[in-house]
């Protein structure tokens, strides 16, 4: 009988599944020792250079550096915006998976590594999953790379031990379309030191700048200033001296005088030199 077979199968599968116990997650939240802190100040942080536009996936894990922040020691990734960028829009997502998620904080810094702003978790929105994205904390923000070229993403120890419960997709659908509310369990994610994140950077405007002062000076020295013609007396002196040097077979001296004459813009010095040579050969 079909019903009997089905019922037997159902009971067997129930008993098998019921044997597998729920995984117990033990959260040991001991503070990270100061010995692990990588750097004494922000300027020494290992900075990851970003391009004008890019989408990157990264992890905060045990291989990440540990920094000291006002809310304790935490693993972090530090980023430097492209020197070509000015106005930049960013989207930072901390992905919820395997029952855990990084509850991030973001610190933005100026070019001298002073803190400009701290973005707390409450400023992130909880985005439930869709066909192409998993549930996540998401933050859209803008930076002016000329004023805040640096930012740090870290798994703040302030949030460890807490969790977030997101709506089951069935509940989202039911609420949105007025469907019968399902009896489903909303998934819960513990805040963890480690997790996967994504960062999307889009440069809205490029940085334009005037050349630095030293560069201007160098350029100016390289520019040839149109020389004034040498005084008639100077011209006469060099023409005579070149001719005499050639006549006395002191060609090296003649060439040296010719070089000086050129620098002083003595007109016709080269012609005088050639004519003197030709006359001598004749």
């Amino acid at each position, binding site marked *: 009988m079909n019903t009997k077979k089905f019922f037997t199968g159902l009971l067997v599968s129930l008993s098998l599944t*019921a044997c597998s116990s729920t995984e117990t997650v033990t959260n040991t939240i001991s503070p990270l020792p100061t010995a692990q802190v990588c750097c004494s100040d922000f300027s020494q942080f290992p900075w990851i250079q970003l391009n004008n536009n890019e989408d990157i996936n990264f992890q905060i894990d045990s291989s990440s550096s540990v920094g000291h922040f006002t809310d304790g020691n935490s693993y972090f990734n530090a980023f430097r915006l492209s020197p070509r960028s000015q106005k930049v829009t960013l989207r930072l997502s901390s992905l919820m998976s395997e029952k855990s998620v990084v509850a991030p904080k973001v610190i933005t810094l100026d070019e001298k590594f002073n803190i400009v702003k701290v973005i707390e978790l409450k400023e992130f929105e909880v985005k439930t999953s869709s066909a192409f994205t998993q549930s996540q904390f998401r933050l859209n923000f803008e930076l002016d790379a000329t004023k805040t070229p640096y930012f740090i993403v870290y798994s703040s120890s302030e949030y460890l031990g807490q969790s977030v419960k997101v709506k089951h997709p069935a509940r989202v659908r039911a609420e949105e379309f*007025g469907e019968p509310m399902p009896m489903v369990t909303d998934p819960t994610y513990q805040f963890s030191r480690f997790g996967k994140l994504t960062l999307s950077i889009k440069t809205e405007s490029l940085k334009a700048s005037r050349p630095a002062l030293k560069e201007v000076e160098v350029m100016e020295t390289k520019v040839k200033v149109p020389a004034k013609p040498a005084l008639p007396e100077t011209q006469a002196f060099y023409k005579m001296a070149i001719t005499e040097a050639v006549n006395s077979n002191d060609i090296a001296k003649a060439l040296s005088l010719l070089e000086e004459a050129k620098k002083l813009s003595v007109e016709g010095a080269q012609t005088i030199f050639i004519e003197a040579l030709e006359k001598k050969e004749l």
Partner: protein
Amino acid sequence: MKFNKYNLLAAAVSTALFSGAATASTDVVKDGWEVHGYASMNFRSVDGESVDTEYGKPDYKTAGTHGKSTNQVEFVIKKHTEHENGVWSDFVVRTEYGNGNSYAYSSEGGQKKNTQSQFEVKETFVEIGGFSFLGKDTSIWGGQRFLNRSAGILSGEFWKQSSGVGAGIQTKLAGNTAGFAVVTADPDAGQDGASADRTTLTSYDFYYYGVDAGIGSLDFDFKYITQANDAEDDGFGAAITLNSSYYGLDGWTQTALSYGKGTAQNRGVNFGSWAGGDENQESIFFTSYGVLNISDSWQMGSEFTYMAALDELFTASGLVRYIAAVRPSYKVNDNLRLEATASYGHEEGDEGYWGRTGDDMESNIINAEIAAAFTVNADYFGRPQIKPYISYIKADDEASASIIGIKNGTDETIVGVHTEIWF
């Protein structure tokens, strides 16, 4: 006296149009597409046969998992845009294939709901809000949609909605949501042999939601429904709904009382192409359903729904229907949940309603079901669930059994596997 629908439509949307002085900033601060979806594959078997009945579920006679839809798939595409000046817009398209089919299809041949095609655009609408000149809490919408739907948790029946094509405006008044909409629906849309003079139904919806009542919040609905080219051409309905805890305990309930007359006879506020009725049609409807959170592992859903003719309902004099149902649920672990459902449904009417006499005049149906829902903690691509179930249905007599599709005797056992995924 009738409303002039064109004036009302204009009132709903024109405020935004005439104010040409307002400029929409082109700076987009948020923009993106989202894709969501749902699939429901209910494999049912009764002594080896697939069946084409829902065992009275739409008529509040049973509450089990044994509904139709062997390969229903739904996709929702949403585009949300926000501008720097606060103006936002949503574009929603919801398509569905296979809702209500009952055949076990093979890979060969056309797939129809018996003889009807079954790809449907359920919703396609645009909503725009955040205009500075209308107030940041005001939005306007236009298109085809389900507006303000509600359904019983165990019967699964929608008792409130406006499903059709229209437009509306929604805002905040005294901190509560207030809205007005005009929604139309053609009863003969897509039908063969439709009349040249369409009998279009139009519902004028007024609603005011979220009024604090101490123990919860109250929602108020009023609908005036007209029908073109029909002698009995109007009616109205009203509902009051309380959203609160589970009767003072941890959980939630939705409790509603509604009244409908004429074209609004169907639970007063359940508007769609199925609406209509003459002035003799008059009904009252009460429902209360929700979920009690007993512990981390135990939950219990319950529903009590009652509807009755005050004169006639669906042309049946003295028609009364009610159902009482409970569904305790035990979460074994993150991957397995056990459910049991029990319901008692009743229907009766005056002698000769819908031609029924004798045993046909009263039905009492008991439904008992056990199910095990297997799920995966999938963080990506949504949450799949496979739920094997056994549902037993017992009617008080063969006449009652026959009405709900039981072919022999007074009882039936349905075994099935209901597979769903939400993403």
